[in-house]
């Protein structure tokens, strides 16, 4: 039976003899014997595709939280939005899937133009003129934003709202160990960042989240003023779906926008591959991390696209590069362009509107349940936090029995407590998308009522 090697044994023999060798092993003779692997890899022998498929089927049956079993009200940056067949089909065309980075523009106009379109869409959504060709995910995009701010200001103090997603802050702390940033986390009060509680003097960046991870819509104007007052960059992490109805990062005066692009055509996929959205003002373009596609012409003066401003990148600038990113998330960016093409102006507005309507409808009814209270009295978009009378984890587990994935446990999300919220152990974070029906929401409320009784 086949693996994926084309060579027949006759061909192998002929090739070896062309090289003056008599066995494949001889190809490795110059590797020091001391370190050569003598008995082969400690791995089971190869299996046929159908056998492996059987194994994976066994695995997937052990995932109780599949869409076919539980109705999803979980969010925190990963949302259950509609991805139509047409987007899946186009995004899985093998020319996109099996292409490499468009190093040779003459045969890569497909990917290059799709990225150019993606950049345009992200620029419009963010209200900022420059968008790059994607980063790994929202969290690492935020790291790159801090690096940009540090480069722009030559400072290392980062003032970060604890309204920023707890995982993102975790990632920031991890990478700050290398870059030596001084990260100052600003606590929340009634769901709002208490900017006044910290000294932002000498900050490179003011980092806010819109909405914040508890779903609350903060007045980003406050953060903006703080950034202006301290000559810091305002870095805004925003739910990209919000741009369908809420003010854009640009409108709020952000210098840098970052976002988790998963809602644009990417399945929940257990957290990846997702898509790091990144946009910034014109001034920061030379500090842009990652790839950017620009328009140009070919030798026959026809419009053409090419990766450009390469001098920023690691393969040219090496240790002085703006970022170390090489492989990024192009396929997700192409898919996002397709999904946004499908949604269009009106569709994005609709998705945002319906998500907000569903969330508010659920919020209103859930809060009528005895013992269930809102964590914050502030406005929200399509996600919100509820305080429940039992431990959040238990409530969620109980709800699963009735087919509802009731949200996420904030205690789990914040790894116990990270200072963003007092006593998170009884808090559930609930998200609603345009896919949730009234019937499903009513069922949610019934189940929650039953569970907290």
């Amino acid at each position, binding site marked *: 039976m086949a693996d994926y090697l084309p060579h027949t044994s006759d061909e192998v023999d002929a090739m070896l003899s062309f090289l003056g060798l008599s066995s494949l092993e001889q190809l490795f003779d110059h590797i020091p014997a001391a370190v050569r692997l003598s008995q082969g890899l400690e791995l089971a022998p190869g299996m046929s595709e159908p056998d492996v498929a059987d194994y994976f089927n066994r695995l997937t049956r052990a995932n109780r939280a599949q869409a076919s079993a539980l109705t999803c009200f979980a969010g925190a*940056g990963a949302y259950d939005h509609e991805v139509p067949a047409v987007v899946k089909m186009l995004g899985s065309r093998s020319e996109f899937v099996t292409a490499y980075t468009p190093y040779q523009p003459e045969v890569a106009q497909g990917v290059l133009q799709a990225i150019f379109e993606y950049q345009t869409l992200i620029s419009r959504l963010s209200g900022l003129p420059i968008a790059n060709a994607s980063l*790994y995910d929202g969290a690492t995009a935020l790291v790159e934003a801090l690096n940009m701010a540090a480069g722009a200001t030559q400072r290392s103090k980062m003032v970060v709202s604890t309204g920023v997603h707890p995982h993102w802050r975790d990632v920031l*702390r991890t990478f700050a160990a290398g870059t030596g940033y001084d990260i100052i986390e600003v606590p929340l009060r009634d769901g709002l960042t208490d900017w006044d509680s910290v000294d932002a003097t000498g900050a490179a960046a003011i980092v806010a989240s819109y909405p914040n991870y508890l779903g609350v819509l903060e007045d980003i104007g406050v953060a903006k003023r703080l950034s202006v007052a301290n000559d810091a960059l305002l870095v805004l992490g925003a739910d990209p779906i919000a741009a369908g109805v809420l003010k854009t990062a640009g409108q709020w005066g952000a210098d840098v926008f970052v976002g988790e692009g998963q809602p644009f055509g990417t399945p929940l996929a257990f957290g990846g591959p997702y898509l790091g959205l990144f946009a910034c003002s014109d001034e920061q373009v030379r500090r842009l991390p990652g790839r950017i596609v620009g328009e140009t012409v070919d030798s026959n003066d026809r419009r053409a696209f090419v990766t450009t401003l390469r001098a920023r990148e690691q393969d040219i600038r090496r240790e002085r590069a703006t970022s170390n990113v090489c492989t990024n998330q192009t396929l997700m960016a192409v898919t996002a362009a397709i999904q946004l093409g499908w949604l269009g102006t009106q569709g*994005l507005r609709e998705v945002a509107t319906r998500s907000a309507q569903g969330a508010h409808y659920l919020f209103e009814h859930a809060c009528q349940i005895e013992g269930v209270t809102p964590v914050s009295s502030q406005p929200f978009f399509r996600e919100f936090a509820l305080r429940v009378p039992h431990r959040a984890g238990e409530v969620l587990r109980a709800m699963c029995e009735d087919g509802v994935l009731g949200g996420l446990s904030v205690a789990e999300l914040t790894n116990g407590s990270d200072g963003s919220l007092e006593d998170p152990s009884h808090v559930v974070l609930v998200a609603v998308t345009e896919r949730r029906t009234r019937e499903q929401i009513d069922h949610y409320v019934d189940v929650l009522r039953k569970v907290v009784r």
Partner: protein
Amino acid sequence: MTAAPGGRAASAPLLGHETEPTMFEMSVPGRSSYQLRTTDVPAVSLDALIPLDHLNSSDVDLVELSERDLVGHFTRLSHRQFSVDLGMYPLGSCTMKYNPKFCDAVAADPGLNSVHPGVPAELCQGWLELLVTLEEKLCAITGMSAATLQPAAGAAGELTGLLLMRAFHSSRGDVRTRVLIPDSAHGTNPASVTLGGYEVTTIPSNERGLVDLAALKAALGPDVAGIMLTNPNTVGLFEEEIVDIAHAVHDVGGLLYYDGANLNAILGAVRPGDMGFDIVHMNLHKTFATPHGGGGPGAGPVAVSKRLEEFLPGPKATRASSGAYEWRRPPRSIGRVHGWHGNAMVLARALAYIDVHGGDGLTRVAQHAVLNANWLRRRLEKTLPAAYDRMCMHECVLTATNLKNSFGVRGLDVAKALLEEGFHSPTVYFPLIVEEALMFEPTETESPQTLEALAQAVERIAQRAHDDPESLHRAPQTTPVSRVDEARAARHLISTEDASSRR
């Protein structure tokens, strides 16, 4: 070997020659494609739900397309794109091998890809088992002790590795400032070192294309945190003095980092752990054939030796003594390096690939990759000599200096002319230490017939260099667009349709 009749070259890409308007040029106000579920949720006006100062008073103008135009547009764009499925991509260092469709099908299973990443462990036991199993297998392949699967690509793995290095030294109160890197290294290595908070010390290569051991030893000292090596290195050669290098670095208390971009070459032949490496990243999108997606997604797991295990990013999927799977944060974890658990669907593809091959199959992969590269090197030695003329591993760096000196034809011209011949270009001008470098990595999935066809194409180009060098400066002409003006793009950046229409 012949290109025919015992089989034909599998490379003759067929691409669209008509320019395609952008989606914005196709947009017509009032058109739409989207269709949403009927929810019966009360359609309360947003003004009643959200304070006015948060609402955008106007629409963000995206695009307005019919579904028919959307499909036409992206299908036509796909016809303007080269890909592995269309033809050969002998891009050195990138390992553009054939990616089994089976692995894509595994990843498309809703039992995997509809699972939310934030659910309690008991609701996603299948996923956790998958992650634990993959970690074990990657450790078996590299000879390491444990791994994190979070890094989303090779470069992310590098930075993760450097932070692990830093955490290790810090934990011992050991302050070190420098990391050594050979001059042949990939650009991500020095860039990652900077982000890891270290300074780069560049180690020259010797005339054999390998790390200059004497220079290395001279550069070592107690301030050296470690060294980053690719082995086989970026000229496709195995660092034969690796055992000595490892000893020397370890002797000053440094750690060895293995850049696994070239792991394809050594599967089943030698393991980084056995060579003395402490930290290893793997590019799953190269060695384990997850598709590159036009530049991503990838996955860059990092495996470490025993003494670094406690610093790994967390939470990590772990098998508890009960047999159940759970998330655990290693005791002195450096923290998360990804918003969730890494590029999970890429990890699933890689596990499927590893399982189909098994230990025996992976060993054959490396053998055939090395066989193909050496055959091609030898086959082309008269036309494009190798920079270092001896046994290479899975790729070979050839040089076009002879064509440049004789006819003024540069490596880039050869690369562009190959596009006309139906092949993707090799990697050009990398590594930087080789003049007019053309780095070919045929990979194990290309047939001898395709290799022969490639060699004949190179020969035709060399002949053209002799007969009509000018024509090569104008190549390619038969591609969807002809040679692109890269300088112009950089001189005046137009990175959006809006900038384009303002122009």
